[in-house]
């Protein structure tokens, strides 16, 4: 198996690369920086024709690649349509065009998100994509566009794997990114501010951990998934309230989750001033009604999520802080197992 991972330097991409390497596959990781923690890094850009690969790289990729994973794209919930569609729409289109030029392609997997279904009415299975849903932000719309494009190419062996929010310690090490997606709420919660959640967060949030998500992608390549759609989440189905509680536990903080609609409106109005973007408040209501039987489409055995990955996320946030503090104090050796936080230019995949 020769795997090309598009956007493989991100949060999920790195985990996928690691899982593939562990399974004995040859892994090539395409990113704009050309760096890779796992496998061979190749410099490229999905928005460009032929992925912006140099002639030498292109020849090698074309002649060897048998499997492709789409892990690229902006994960910001707050960016505008231009930035989101740049990767999710234009990028997916050019990546699909590139797949047509791969003579040995056996299977490709597009990593989609349950958020592509936005505020859907009714029960959702793997079959639905457009149910007349309304989108909360441009990220959801971007993921929808990407999956739409993938579904509209029946001639290509591209399967779709959908995840909810993906948590867990960053496989690249360092402090988990709290600038995008659900983790944007963590600093707020850890600082002890109250957060409004409908039913005090007692609704499923279809969360999973990064290593089991990566296993699922590998399984999709390996099985192979064909043109099917799979949805994966932690079968234990933690509720959003539980997720927040578990992430805060290593800090000795009990998150102040309240059901107070005025607080939600307040957050929406001035939350940005205290670092809680308006987009976050849109997720305070139950998200979507997903049929839990969708898991059965994935052939067994299913991967087992890491025990206490939520606690590990909180721990990683603490460790990140601690390592920053040790660095500030001028200590030469940061604590084992932690790296200094990265400069904030890279995007980390969340879902």
């Amino acid at each position, binding site marked *: 198996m020769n795997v090309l991972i598009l956007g493989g330097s991100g949060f999920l991409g790195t985990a996928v690369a690691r899982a593939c390497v562990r399974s004995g596959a040859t892994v090539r990781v395409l990113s704009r920086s050309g760096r890779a923690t796992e496998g061979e890094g190749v410099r490229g850009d999905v*928005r*460009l*024709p*032929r992925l*912006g690969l*140099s*002639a030498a790289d*292109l020849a090698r990729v074309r002649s060897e690649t048998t499997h492709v994973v789409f892990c690229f794209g902006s994960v910001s919930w*707050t*960016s*505008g*349509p*231009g930035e989101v*569609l*740049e990767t999710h*729409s*234009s990028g997916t289109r*050019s990546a699909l*065009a590139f797949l047509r030029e791969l003579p040995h392609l056996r299977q490709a997997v597009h990593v989609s998100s349950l958020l592509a279904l*936005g*505020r859907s009415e009714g029960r959702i299975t793997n079959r639905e994509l*457009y149910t007349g*849903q*309304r*989108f*909360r*932000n*441009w990220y959801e*719309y971007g993921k*929808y*566009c990407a999956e*739409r*494009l993938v*579904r*509209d190419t029946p001639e290509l062996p591209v399967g779709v794997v959908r995840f909810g929010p993906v948590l867990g310690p960053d496989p690249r090490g360092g402090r988990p990114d709290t600038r995008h997606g659900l983790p944007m709420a963590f600093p707020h919660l850890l600082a002890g501010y109250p957060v409004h959640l409908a039913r005090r967060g007692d609704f499923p949030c279809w969360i999973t951990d990064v290593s089991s998500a990566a296993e699922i992608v590998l399984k999709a390549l390996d099985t192979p998934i064909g043109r099917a759609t799979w949805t994966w989440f932690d079968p234990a189905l933690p509720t959003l309230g539980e997720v927040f509680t578990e992430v805060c536990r290593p800090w000795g903080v009990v998150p102040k989750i309240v059901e107070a609609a005025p607080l939600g409106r307040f957050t929406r109005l001035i939350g940005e001033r205290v670092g809680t973007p*308006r987009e976050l408040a849109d997720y305070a209501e139950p998200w979507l009604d997903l049929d839990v039987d969708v898991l059965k489409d994935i052939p067994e055995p299913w991967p087992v999520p890491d025990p206490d990955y939520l606690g590990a996320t909180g721990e990683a946030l603490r460790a990140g802080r601690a390592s920053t503090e040790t660095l500030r104090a001028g200590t030469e050796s940061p604590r084992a197992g932690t790296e200094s936080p990265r400069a904030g230019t890279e995007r980390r995949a969340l879902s």
Partner: protein
Amino acid sequence: MTGRPASVDTDPHPYFTVYSAGNFGEVAPQRLSPMSWSLVGDPMERGTRALARRLWGRPAWAEGGHYVFVGYFGCRPYHNLAAYCHLSASIPGLQPSDVTDAYFEGVDSPAELTALRSGRTRQWAGSARLLREMRDAGPRLRALEEQVAELEWGLRAATTTNSPIALAGVLRDAQPVLEEAWAVHILTTSGLVPVRALQRRVYGKLLRHGEEIAHWLTRPRELVWDRLHTAAATLDPHGPGDFLSSSFYEVADGLAPWQDYAVRHKQVASGGTEAAVAPIDPAEALAGMVSPWRSRTVRALAVAVGEMMAGREHSKSLAMRTLHIYRRLLPALATSFGEDAERLWPYLTLREFTDLATSPGRIERARPRVGACRAALATPMPEHLDLSAGDDVMRPWLSTTPQEQRGVAPGIGTGTVMAPQDDLPDEPVIIVCSSADADIAPLLPFAEGVLSERGSDLSHIAILAREYGIPCVVGYPGAASLPAGTAVSINGSTGEVNIFDRS
């Protein structure tokens, strides 16, 4: 037409002395014959004056025997940049840069003559009247469409019977239609600028990423060009689409030297291969992200601007169709006016040509103009003209801020370069051109994007690209000379252009 014997130039305006080819430069040929000028510049001037009069009364600067809003120098048509920028000062909240960005490729606007500025009350009253005028543009367009169709039928009847009397009748009937067509075109063209400025401002207040979203949402729902290209496919020589195979604006495109400037591209017949399921529009996607009243306001504005764009293209097509009637009528009538007229009619104005029937001596006026035009055509004319020195020397108006390429229709497109006259290859293509006219429309469904040397936010090509939802970047020098097969990536949101070597 002119007081000076050896020139066909118009007199410049005494105060507003900066001219720009602007939008003329994109669709019109480089040079126009005096006859075409009298069919384009003259009614445009009259239409703009009438509009200004209805909106703001009779400002002294818009009166007089000289042209105010347009100019014709060295056989090249120009817009009076200074006058249009001054008009923008008469609308509250509008900046001269809104006008230059929309139609004049973002050149610097000349300094404002504050002494001529109108008062606040007049400004607001004028805007209210402008809104009312724009509301009535739709019915006016429909009535006009009927009249143009009638004229086309009249021409068909007159040509089949080959009767000079009937042809002269069509010539007589065509004049009011032409004036109305240009008047509506002026109205929609100028109305679009304040409406868009308003849209941008309201979006900025109501939405996060307002500017960007304005780009994505504003799309004309249906442009007239599709219908006309379908009509052209019937190859009916008197049908509504026949004008598409001839040059915009130039009516004497069968005669030297004017035919050299009337460049036409090849037409490509269109056939359909479209995506199975249309994805949701960004406009629909936005609906869930904002509160209902915001969403309604945003969409109403987007529709208003989109409709104005469609109206502008519609009025332009009607003006082109009327010009096409002249294009067929004038040579046919000229033969009945004698051999001289057959050769010299492009050098007459419409008025003089009409008078030939009763006073054949008018043809003498054309003779000195032949030499004058030849001399004018040999002189290169700048894009933007500065006549403020008043010494008859054509100096270019230089912009101090560098003009850079701009994205005018959002999205990213990558593909290989293709000129409009080339055959359509199998791979994704980016159409490159120096400027675009209607004939590019049939290619757009097959293109991934458009890269143009010229153009502004509201140019023809920008509106067409929006209609088809493909990205467009304008103001990229040397676009048309890119060799075919070069791989290009354009970003219609930021204006970024990447050129790759073919590997």
